[in-house]
Structures are given as C-alpha cells and as structure tokens.
C-alpha cells in the first residue's frame, strides 16, 4: 500500500528525518509515537507531500509521490488527513465543509453528497449540527466533523496528526471512539499520537521515532511489554 524508502527531510541545516524506510499494508493501523521533536509529524506530512522530502522515495498504491511528474492533487484525494487543530473552513457550515471537496473536485451531485454527508455525520454523532458554523462547535465536535470531512472523499489512507492533542481531556474520548471505530472498519491509517493506551488498543503496529530515525517497528503487545531499544524503554517510563 505504502512503501517508504530512505526518506530524509531537512529544514535548512536541521535534519529532521534521517532516512526512514518502511512498508504499510492495506488495512494496517499504525500508531506513530516518540518524544516531541522526533520527526513524527514531519514524517506523516511527507506521506501526502505537505512536506516535500529532501531525499528518498514514497510509493502509494504503485504511484511514486516523490516523482515530480506525479499529479499530487489527484493522489491527495485518496489520502485523507486529520489535523491537530481541525482546520475546518470557518466560512462554511458543517455540511458545506463536508460536501465542498466531493462536489467541487470529484463532481459528485450535491444531493448525493449531502446524503452521504448526513450518514457520516450520524456515524460521528453530529447529525444535528449539519447547518451550524464551525465556530459554534466544541473542539471534540470540530475534530469529529474534520474526520467526517476527510471520509467524504473515500480515502484509501487517512493520516491523523495528533488528533486529540488540542482537545480538553473530557473531549478526547469521543474523538478516540470515532477513530477506533474507523480502525475496525479496515481503513489504512497512520496516527501520530501521545495517547499510549489508545495506541496499544487500536493499532496493529507501533512505530517509535527518535531523532528522525525509525527506531522500532513492532506489535503493540511486544512494544509495550518489552521495547527493544533502551531509548524506547526510557520514553515509555516517562509517559506511562
């Protein structure tokens, strides 16, 4: 599904990613953890080219993203992303946020898109908010709308960039419940998160990044029971 080979990324002199290689299978749920500044978010953002890698190749479904000839706009329609700060379009209602890309980019009829939008809003428990503006929603509600918006495009992969880090504690649960539900539905997902309990329960694979290197790649059971590196053990000690 996703094949990453020796991806590097530098911002000026700062080397954020120092050669990451990995493969993600279809339907695999990956939790990416690690201390702050380890390059987790940068790695995730490289996967839909919001950050352009300095070196290496990324192939998604047989299409090489890092090839300059690739129509990245089309590829992005199949790679959804959910941000820490939601980034809903503030001038559009919840429903219009949902149907904007399908109608304007994919050319789906408005009525059809609205039907689908309603179903997704029901799925994230916000069917009654279709016609309100994002400013009227709580953080947790905003993030659930953002997830629904991303699902409207029927993505093959969804990237979650710290989806609960900007939320008040009591709202984390409702968002994690939605993501967990998605994880069970067979969607390929990569989730950068600080929620260790969630990572352990929902993920198929744990990536542990530190200093721009993918230090560990193992099952949650193995990782949380006995990390292979001393760096990961120290990290777990601090967060658990």
């Amino acid at each position, binding site marked *: 599904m996703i094949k990453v080979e020796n991806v590097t990324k530098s911002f000026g002199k700062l080397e954020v990613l120092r050669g990451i290689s990995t493969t993600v299978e279809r339907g695999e749920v990956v939790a990416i953890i690690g201390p702050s500044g380890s390059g987790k978010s940068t790695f995730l953002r490289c996967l*839909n080219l919001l950050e352009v890698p300095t070196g290496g190749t990324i192939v998604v479904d047989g299409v090489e993203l890092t090839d300059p000839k690739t129509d990245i706009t089309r590829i992005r329609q199949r790679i959804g*992303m959910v941000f820490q700060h939601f*980034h809903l379009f503030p001038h559009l209602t919840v429903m219009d946020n949902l149907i904007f*890309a399908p109608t304007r980019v994919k050319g789906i009829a408005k009525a059809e898109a609205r039907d689908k939008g309603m179903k997704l809003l029901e799925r994230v428990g916000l069917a009654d908010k279709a016609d309100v503006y994002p400013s009227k929603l709580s953080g947790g509600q905003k993030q659930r709308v*953002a997830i629904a918006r991303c699902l409207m495009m029927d993505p093959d992969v969804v990237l979650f960039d710290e989806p609960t880090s900007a939320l008040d504690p009591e709202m984390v649960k409702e968002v994690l419940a939605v993501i967990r539900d998605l994880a069970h539905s067979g969607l390929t997902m990569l989730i950068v998160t600080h929620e260790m309990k969630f990572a352990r329960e929902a993920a198929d694979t744990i990536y542990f990044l530190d200093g721009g290197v993918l230090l560990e790649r193992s099952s949650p059971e193995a990782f949380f029971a006995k990390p292979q590196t001393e760096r990961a053990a120290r990290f777990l000690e601090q967060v658990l």
Partner: protein
Amino acid sequence: MDSLISRALVALACLCVLAGCLVVPGASTPSAAAAGKTITMGTSPDYPPYENIDAAAGGEIVGLDIDIALAIADKLGYELKIAPSDFDGLIAALQSERVDFVMSGMSVTEERKQSVDFSDIYYVASNMIVSLKDSGYDSLDDLAGKKVGVQLGSTQENVVSGIEKPDVLKLNKIPDLIQALKADRVDAVIVEDAVAAGYAGANEDLKIAAIPASDEGEGYAIAFPKGSELTEPFNKALQELKDDGTLQQMIDKWFGTESTAGTMGKGGGLHFERLEKYFGYILRGVYVTLLFTLVSAAFGFVWGAILSLFKLSKVAVLRGFSTVYTSIFRGTPLLLQLALIYYAVPQLTGYNIPPLLAAGLAFGLNSAAYLSETIRGGILAVDKGQREAALSLGIPYRTMMFSIIMPQAVKNILPALVNECVALVKESSLVSVIGVADLMRRATVVQANTFLAFEPLLVVGAIYYVLVLALTSVARLLERRMRRSD
C-alpha cells in the same frame, strides 16, 4: 494557474465593455473623424454665453460658439458632435486628434499658433475688471502691484502684462476666480466683458470696469490640428455667415439675453433658491458618479486580487511584474495617470477611448495597486492550516484560492475595502477634468450658469457626504452578513 489568469482577463474585459456602455447624460461621446460625415468639436462648456450646459433644461450644450459651429457644419454637410472637456485640455484634445476642431471662446495667441492652426477671427471681445463694490479699481493702472486673478490658459493672461508688477493668480475656472475675489484672495479678476456682466448681474457685491480694447485686437477663432484640411472650408463658411449677417444675428441673440441668471437676492449671503431648477441636473450626476465608482471598484478589486496572487506566486516574473506595477501606480499621481490614459491612448493606438472608460481604467488600475497589497495582507492573515486542509483534500490551487482562502481574506480586509470604495467615490470627482459629467463636473456647470461660485459646491458636497454615508451602511450590513459564521 493559466486558466485562472485567462478567466480573470475575461472578467476584466467584461468590466471594460460594461464601462464602455455607460451612457453619460448630457455629454456626447467623442469620436474624432468617425466614419460617415460627423465632425467633433471640443469645447469647455463653462463659459456662457459662448458655451454652457443648459442644465435647467435638457443638459444640452448651448451658446454662441455652438450656434456658429452648427451653422458651419450645416453648410459643409457634416453632422456636429460635441465633446466637452476642460479648457486647458482642449489643445491636447486637438493634438491627439480626439476632436476635429475647437470652439471655446479661444483667442488667437502666438503661443497657441505653435501647436494649432486658427481660422479667421469670428468675434472680438474686450475685457473687464471685476472687483468688490468698494474697491475703486477702474483701470489697469489701479491694479499696479495688486493681486489679480485670471483664467489659466486664457487670453486674459496677456492682458495682465499691461499691469505694473502684478501678482497674478491663475485658476482653472472662472467661478473659482470669483470665489477667490469674494474671499479676498485676489483684489480683482480680469475676465471677458460678457462673462463679467453676468457675474456682476448675479452678485450685488461685485462691480465691473471696462478695459479699453488694447493694441492688436485679439479675437476668438476656431482652432484646428496643425495642417488640418478643415481650415479652408471653415473659413469660407465663416465668411459667408459674416457676409449675409447671420453671424451678427447670432451675436445679438446671445448677448441680448445674456443675463441668464437674472439679478435676484439682496447683497451677500447664500442663494440656494437660484439653484432650484438645476437640482434635477445635479442629481443625475449621482448616477454617473455611482456607476463610475462601481465599475472602477469592481475592476480594481478583480485586478488587485490577481496582482496579489502574482505577488504570492512562485514565478519570479509575475512577482517582479506586480511589484513594479504597484510601485509605479502608487508612485505617481492619479490625475496624471488619468490624463495620460485619456490623451495618450488615442495617440498611440488610434483607439478613441471614451472619457468614462478612460477614467474607469485609470481608477481601476490605480486602485488595484493599493488593493493588491491589502488583499495580499488578507491572504497571508488566513491561517496556513486552511491551505493545508484544502490541499490534503485534493482541492486544486485555483479552487482553494477562490473558494477557501479569498472569502476568508476578504472578510479580514472588509474595513480596508470599504475605505477604498469611499476614497473612490470622492476621488471620482477628478474625472471632471476630462469632461465626464459626474457630480463635481455638474457643480462647475451650474456655477458657470448661475454665476454663483459657492452654493453649487455646498450642494454637491452634501450629496457626496450622503453617498458615502449610504455606502458605509451598506458595507456594515455586508460585514454583519459575513460575520454570521463567527
């Protein structure tokens, strides 16, 4: 990006066509030497009884010069079109062949002969000193060392040379001179006798004194572009009018009933009642001013938005272009840009750009330079997460810019946009210099017709103020609507 630009250019073209379709009541569109047998005359219709706008009636331009021109055109088999403009723009209009000839109480001077050809003289006027009642200025000798006002570019500039050490104030318009006189900025004003009589008749605090006709006997003549083929036939026709007495009849007609304004009202004070029959004429200027503002604001906004995208573009050429563009249009006066576009376009391209289109273009181009910076700021102020969210949904750049980023940017900069519109409403008064009959122009016309210097300005000022108030409240409604998502 290419189709974005081409689409924007189409929008621009539509705006230009719209501007071109604007019909200005009271002013005919100039088109020098147009196909068929029409002939275009340039004149500055603020000089009764030679030429002024019959504002109380239909807004036609009437006067002695017009009657003579009509008679000559009739004799030569032309249809006459009249293109009004400011007096000091007339020579430029001839040189750019915007008009075929000029009749505007223009006297023959050596200086003018350098740039244009003149017909024979059709009328010799003498000049008068206008001063305040108790001034005691009766001859040029009395004005030695005094401050004297004359119209810029007029023959009276030469008369002043007969005064010892004069301190000369030259203004564009005679009503302004009269106002300067009343405000004690000048001690006396020298104007032509018929005009002087008009003002003295309408203003009880003014007196007039004749200046004996001087040496060479300068007179008014018709001006043509250098080497024009019209000079000869015009002279012939003019001679016929002189010979059969028609010309004298016309002179009698206009100078016999010259006191158009009459003498009402006592002493000083304001005389708004004399403006009564002109209100309709002035109010029609609201339409012109608003239409003009709308067109130039829309054009300025669209073009400014494109320029702002250029400035944020990755392409160095586009960035460079818009930077240089902004710097030039912000770095030179708007009035100069307006004059350049109006006079240079016909000379360079042969396309006789109508005044309102020239003005819309100049103001739009100028306003775009300012707005491009404002819009750029507005775009940069939109959270970059908006851009990332749009990109990650696979929304193309153009759709993202127009439907996601721009609406938020515009909301951010709405107060600045309203400022720009308000400025445009008021700056639109500059178009009067190229003869567009906007509010300000109409005030000048009424000044000329009524011989009242001050009152028409007050009335028009009040109208501008009301327009701006109305615009501001519309903007407030709009802002409230845009803020409903907050």
